[in-house]
């Protein structure tokens, strides 16, 4: 029983802290913009508010539109439940789990795309189109980066790969996880619709990707989606933090603390990046995501050679 | 002697443009060839078959063929081949070359008895010249003449290479030859009826 509770911890942590990480990103961006910005806990309030609103469904939509938010949130919950948090194991772990989780995210994407096409709106169709297009590069990058990480460790699950860092030295394989880390960072930006791929706060619909897809969602549906987004950001933050702690061979309670530290640090870095560079032109986006593929490929080839 | 006649007829054919003359030359050649079995008979001993072949040969090659062809010629009203594919001078030269080539080949063929050397040369050269006529002359009648030469040459060749061909085969071959010439000349007449000319080179509507 205790065991299961322990395994549930990463999920609980994510549920609690994910909106906070979003708040941190916002705060950092506001700081660089010279504004005071929202409080860091603003997102909790937003979610609460949205849960108390009603929903508006367009005549054009069908059950697909209503199913999508549920599926998206469900998938995000499962993903963060799977992801180990420092020394804490995820709820479940098996060989090839990362493939399954990546495909679950694919399922969520599929649902989001269909939901946005269901609205019969040109804007949302456009967003869906871009999302689907960029995924063609993001998917292989994700899988290859995971594979580099996992195969380097000689394990077949992420848990094994992360705990490997505690026995082995940084110098031996260090460059491979580092490359994977870079790859994941780029993916964290692109998969979570951050600058330079997408601008979640813009007001020009023509330039949006993710936000434009959910224009028609409202009330609890929107809350689900927003929460799912936050969880996904958290997923990437924790993933990267895991790699960093593994590289530095931190263990025990220190590891848990370090995880939080790195996660929030990475959130701030994302904020900094968002503040310091501009959005890329749509045509340039594939190059950017492509670099994630390149890093992951490099990692895998180096893994093969070393 | 007879063989020399045959050779000379080959040459004169090449040089001649008048159809009538050519037919007559063929007749002469036919006679010469007709007597050939008799000549062989003189050497080796006469037999009934040889005589019969000679008689039939003379009758066909010397008399019947020229007759048929003259009739076709009369029907057509054409008298000479004006623009042969290969010019007359060149034709003569080619025929000469062909004769020498035949001689060379005959010498090369080792199983030919020396006394048959000339016969074999004549046979080959007549075959060649016949083929040459079929390829190098435009008018249908000239092609028939070429075919007759070809047949004549083969006949010589049979005499030169093979002994004692059964009568039935010999007769069959002769029968074929006559039917062939007959059929061809009938065809020639038809061609003339249909096209008002004999020029085979103009018969090229069927292509591809």
């Amino acid at each position, binding site marked *: 029983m205790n065991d299961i509770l322990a395994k549930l911890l990463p999920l609980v942590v994510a549920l609690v802290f994910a909106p906070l990480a979003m708040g941190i990103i916002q705060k950092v961006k506001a700081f660089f913009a010279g504004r005071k910005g929202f409080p860091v806990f603003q997102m909790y309030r937003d979610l609460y508010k949205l849960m108390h609103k009603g929903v508006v469904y367009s005549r054009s939509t069908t059950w697909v539109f209503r199913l999508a938010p549920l599926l998206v949130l469900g998938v995000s919950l499962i993903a963060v439940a799977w992801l180990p948090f420092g020394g804490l194991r995820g709820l479940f772990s098996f060989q090839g789990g990362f493939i399954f989780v990546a495909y679950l995210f694919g399922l969520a994407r599929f649902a989001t795309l269909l939901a946005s096409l269901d609205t019969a709106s040109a804007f949302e169709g456009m967003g869906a189109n871009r999302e689907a297009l960029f995924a063609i590069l993001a998917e292989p990058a994700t899988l290859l980066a995971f594979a580099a990480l996992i195969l380097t460790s000689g394990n077949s699950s992420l848990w094994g790969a992360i705990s490997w860092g505690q026995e082995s030295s940084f110098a031996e394989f260090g460059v491979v996880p580092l490359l994977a880390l870079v790859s994941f960072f780029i993916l964290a930006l692109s998969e979570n619709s951050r600058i330079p791929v997408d601008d979640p706060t813009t007001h020009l619909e023509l330039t949006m990707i993710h936000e434009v897809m959910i224009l028609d969602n409202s009330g609890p549906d929107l809350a689900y989606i927003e929460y799912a987004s936050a969880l996904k950001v958290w997923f990437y933050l924790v993933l990267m933090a895991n790699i960093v702690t593994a590289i530095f061979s931190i263990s025990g309670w220190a590891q848990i603390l370090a995880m939080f530290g790195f996660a929030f640090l990475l959130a701030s870095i994302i904020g900094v990046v968002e503040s310091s560079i501009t959005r890329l032109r749509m045509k340039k986006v594939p190059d950017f995501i492509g670099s994630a593929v390149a890093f992951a490929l490099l990692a895998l080839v180096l893994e093969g050679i070393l | 002697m007879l063989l020399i006649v045959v050779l000379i007829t080959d040459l004169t054919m090449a040089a001649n443009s008048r159809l009538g003359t050519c037919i007559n030359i063929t007749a002469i050649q036919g006679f010469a060839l007709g007597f050939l079995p008799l000549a062989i008979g003189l050497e080796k001993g006469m037999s009934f078959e040889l005589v019969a072949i000679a008689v039939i040969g003379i009758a066909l090659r010397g008399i019947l063929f020229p007759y048929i062809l003259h009739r076709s010629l009369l029907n057509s009203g054409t008298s000479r081949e004006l623009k042969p594919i290969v010019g007359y001078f060149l034709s003569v030269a080619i025929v000469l070359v062909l004769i020498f080539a035949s001689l060379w080949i005959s010498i090369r063929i080792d*199983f030919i008895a020396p006394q048959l050397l000339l016969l074999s040369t004549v046979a080959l050269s007549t*075959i060649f010249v016949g*083929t040459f006529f*079929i390829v190098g002359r435009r008018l*249908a009648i000239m*092609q028939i003449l070429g*075919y007759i030469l*070809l*047949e004549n040459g*083969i006949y010589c*060749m*049979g005499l030169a*290479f*093979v*002994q*004692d*061909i*059964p009568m*039935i*085969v010999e007769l*069959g*071959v002769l*029968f*074929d030859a006559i*039917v*062939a010439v007959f*059929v*061809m000349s*009938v*065809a020639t007449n*038809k*061609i003339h009826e*249909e*096209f008002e000319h004999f020029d*085979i080179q103009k*018969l*090229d*509507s*069927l292509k*591809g």
Partner: protein
Amino acid sequence: MLFGGFLAVPVFGVLLILVSKSSRQALMIMLAAALGGALLSGILAAQVAQAGVIEVAGGLFRADHFSAWHMIILAIIVFLPSSVYAYTYFGGGKGIDLGYAKRFGMLWLGAFAAMSTALLSGNIGIMWVAIEASTLFTAFLIFRQGNAASLEAMWKYIIMCSVGVAFAFIGTLLMAAAGQQAGLEGGDSLLLQKIYLVRGALKPSLALTAFIFILVGYGTKAGLAPMHNWLPDAHSQAPGPVSAMFSGFLLNAALYCILRFLPLFSPSDGGASVLQGGEAGSMLAGAALASSKAQIILMGFALLSLVISSAFIFFQKDAKRMLAYCSVEHMGIIAFAYALGPIGTIAGLFHTLNHSFAKTAGFFSAGSLGKKLHTNELAGFSGASKRYPLYAIGFAVSLLALIGVAPFSVFMSEFMLVSSTVAAQRFLPLAIFLAATSIVFLVMLKHAIAILWKNAPGEEKAVTPDGAPGGMSGGVPPISEYLVIGLPLAFLLVLGLWMPHGLSDFLTKALDSLWSMK
């Protein structure tokens, strides 16, 4: 007695035709004679199957399984249906005048007599005489009064075949000379079997030269490239039944004569060693892979025929010319099979049968279609299935059969051919064969599709939406046409799936009789 019959029946027929009073009568007599010929060849085949070889006049005439096989194809599969078809083609005599009917009947029977003589002669001189005679008899069959193109075709046919066959006679003489050199006396040197017995003593260069003359000579008549040029002209200009007879058998007869000479060059004792009951396994295990030079030369001509015919079929616009080139192709395929030696012989024998079946049906239907539509253009045939379902479907199906679509037996014989070629390890020829047949497949399939389903030229919409036979406007074809077109195709279908034991036995014996003169 039996052999005499093959001459007597046509001669008797010719005499009767001479005194016949009407075109209908003449054609009826012709038909009766053809039936007689078919019966005779049936009896011959039965006797051969019982007794093996039948010889008369000291081997002057001779029938074995190989010639009996060809005799069956000639008389039963090609000649009889062609005669039936000719009868209806000429409207039972209504469409033609008496003179033409008489002439046609006499030449037709003459051709039959000549070809059966060629098949049944054991003497290469007589063989030659018969082949030359067949040229002369058939020449005027091509000609149709008042048709300039047919005259042109006829002239080309006469000249080319006469010259070619004259060369074959040179070859025959040389072969006889070689025989005499090897110690044969006089007339024996023209007897094929006698030459075969002394084949070890033949002077190789002389015998080979003889063979080359024979190959090129008879090859002209058989339509092997590059001596095939008369063939498309003659086939396209001749009336339907004549084209069918030409393609269905005349070519085979000439090829038969070439093939008869092949065993003289066979290095070992021919088929016997390779042959144990015709089973695929033992056939393939045969060791006699080495080809004689004669086989190599034959292979060369076969491949050239395949290449050239496929190229010409590719851009052919005239239906009957296409079928003619297709004959060149199939002659190439048959020659290909025999050029492999005993290994390929069964495939060759079987393919000869299949090709004759399919080609006669093809020419029958193309001939009728051309007559009805007043064109031989393939483009004009498209969509004909709606107006003339029998002819159009018959034509399209025979095209499909000819290109080797399963389950027609052409597929089977080509399968046998491919496996024999592999067994003989002739991979380059195999590649050429496959490439050429594939090109032919591509083109003829396109035409078959167009004939079956494309809209007729000038029609925007289909005549009947259903494509059902209800939209027929050409009148109901006589039952005999259903038979002569339908039966061969049905046989092809059955033979593709079911080879009776007796038939495979006969083929095996034919193989043996070709290669070891038994």
